[in-house]
């Protein structure tokens, strides 16, 4: 059973009961941060997944927002409050919209990809900011979710939502990790390195980029649903490019070495932000910017490279597979 999962996957699976357990032990405010950062963390890992293919999305907030607003609108206009249905609808919206946009974006790489994802996310920003039915720039509030007809109250509602956030979030992370190890994940790395060769080896780089884009978008939308439910509120800032920029920041800081590091990075950053903003409200961006510059200059592969020197999927997989064969032989 364990053999079909690698170390990262086992860690992610173990994290589910551990996080749920911590939910009962840790003070409420930390649990809240865990919950919120699992939502944004999913967006960060989807930015990282694209970075593996050499694609920097400066507009991932688009799908974060689509997820959140879909859940909000389903509650507001259709009276849907079931968490599973909301997650499904959010993911479906992200998937459908990214599938269509993918036909435009898959043609672009490098700075064009960065800037066009940004521009597309700003279309939604403009649209939502001027839609009064959806609260314009203020956004609107979401009701507490229900679970297959069960509607818990008070403390119970909090725990239920926390558990219902942990499980899909970590499963999404596991899914993206598997994707990066799959043939498609390898093709992604190859595209980052040399797209011409990829085409000459006999596969479509456009298709691979499209699939990566859709997958990242779907996971981001799920992150958006979870985040919106955790805060009980959505607003157009979710798709402002400055929000997307923070996801890029987290990915740069954590590096593309492992799917867990952006998740963890998001949480740490969330905590630091609270204090930093309290102590000195006008230097938060200054700090982020400086850390980012220092990371780019001194740690080009992110903090993860301090833990594990090689950041390529291929190499981590290789290490894993040689370890596996040793285990089976002993």
């Amino acid at each position, binding site marked *: 059973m364990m053999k079909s999962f*690698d170390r990262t996957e086992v860690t992610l699976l173990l994290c589910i009961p551990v996080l749920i357990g911590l939910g009962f032990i840790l003070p409420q405010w930390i649990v809240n941060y865990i919950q919120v950062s699992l939502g944004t963390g999913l967006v960060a890992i989807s930015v990282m997944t694209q970075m593996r293919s050499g694609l920097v999305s400066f507009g991932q907030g688009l799908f974060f927002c689509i997820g959140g607003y879909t859940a909000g609108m389903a509650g507001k206009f259709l009276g849907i409050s079931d968490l599973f249905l909301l997650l499904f609808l959010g993911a479906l919206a992200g998937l459908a919209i990214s599938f269509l946009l993918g036909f435009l974006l898959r043609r672009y790489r490098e700075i064009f990809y960065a800037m066009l994802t940004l521009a597309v996310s700003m279309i939604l920003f403009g649209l939502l900011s001027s839609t009064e039915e959806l609260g314009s720039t203020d956004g609107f509030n979401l009701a507490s979710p229900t679970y297959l007809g069960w509607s818990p109250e008070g403390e119970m509602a909090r725990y239920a939502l926390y558990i219902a956030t942990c499980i899909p979030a970590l499963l999404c992370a596991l*899914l993206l990790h*598997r*994707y990066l*190890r*799959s*043939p*498609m*994940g*390898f*093709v992604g*790395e*190859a595209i980052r*390195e*040399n797209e*011409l*060769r*990829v*085409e*000459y*080896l*006999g*596969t*479509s780089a456009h298709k*691979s980029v499209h*699939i990566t884009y859709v*997958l990242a978008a779907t996971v981001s939308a799920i992150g958006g649903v979870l985040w919106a439910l955790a805060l009980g509120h959505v607003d157009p800032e979710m798709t402002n490019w400055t929000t997307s920029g923070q996801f890029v920041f987290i990915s740069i800081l954590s590096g593309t070495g492992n799917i867990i590091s952006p998740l963890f990075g998001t949480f740490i950053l969330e905590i630091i932000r609270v204090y930093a903003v309290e102590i000195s409200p006008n230097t938060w961006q200054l700090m982020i910017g400086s850390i980012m510059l220092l990371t780019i200059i001194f740690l080009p592969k992110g903090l993860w490279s301090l833990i594990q020197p090689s950041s*390529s999927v*291929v*190499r981590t*997989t*290789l290490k894993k*597979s040689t370890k596996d*064969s040793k285990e089976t032989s002993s």
Partner: protein
Amino acid sequence: MTVLLETRNLERTFGAVVAASNINIQIKAGEILGVIGSNGAGKTTFVNMVTGYLSPSSGEILYRGNPIHGKATRDITKLGICRSFQIPQLFLELSVLENMLIALIIAKGNAPVLFAPAVNDSLEEEALRLLSRFGIEDYANQEITTLPQGVRKLVDIAMATVSEPELLFLDEPTSGVSAHEKLEIMQVLITALKVTNTAVLFIEHDMEIVEAFSPRVVAFYEGTILADGPTAEVLQNSKVREFVIGSEFHRKGDAPPSSTTETNSAKIGSVLEGGV
């Protein structure tokens, strides 16, 4: 022997520049054929057209009797036509083994599988075995950026052969390698490719290599074919001597091999001796 590839009146222009015109070539299964011509004679343009990187301005390309012009590079690769590059096209920040693994994964057509691990022991073994055919398995764990040009060329060619093509184009397989290493490298290549009965078209500037390895030669000059036939005949052809070989000698005299390429190729040589 079956005709694999046939081009009919192939032409390619870039604006007012005619890069290739009236190209008629037939390549048979398992055949080995050398292509000569000075820089800008249309050799690479020809390969780029046949492999779908450039679309011809006019003319036809038939593979096993079916038209393939206008098809995408990846689809032409799937049909069984591969190529290597004058400047190796590799995944620079990955190791030689990783380069081969990616090539194998794509060649096996597993790319659409989304959530299953791609690499296993047997795939690794296969990659190493392919590398050993070209005598470069000792470099398996080195990153491409650390390798000398000669080894990069061999990796480039090894990657082009993973899908076991029926027809392989080698674009100057021995450029950047010193004169006496060229023979050795070609020997390794041709031996490795004979095993799979791959038809090989190689572009080469060194007439000695051409004479040694290909029974047939096509000479390009200013975008057209000047001569096509048995090697001895073509190399004796007066026009070829005047326009192609003459300029080749001239070219070689202009650019003596630098000392760095010598040391690089010396390294390959030692590996080759171990591998073959």
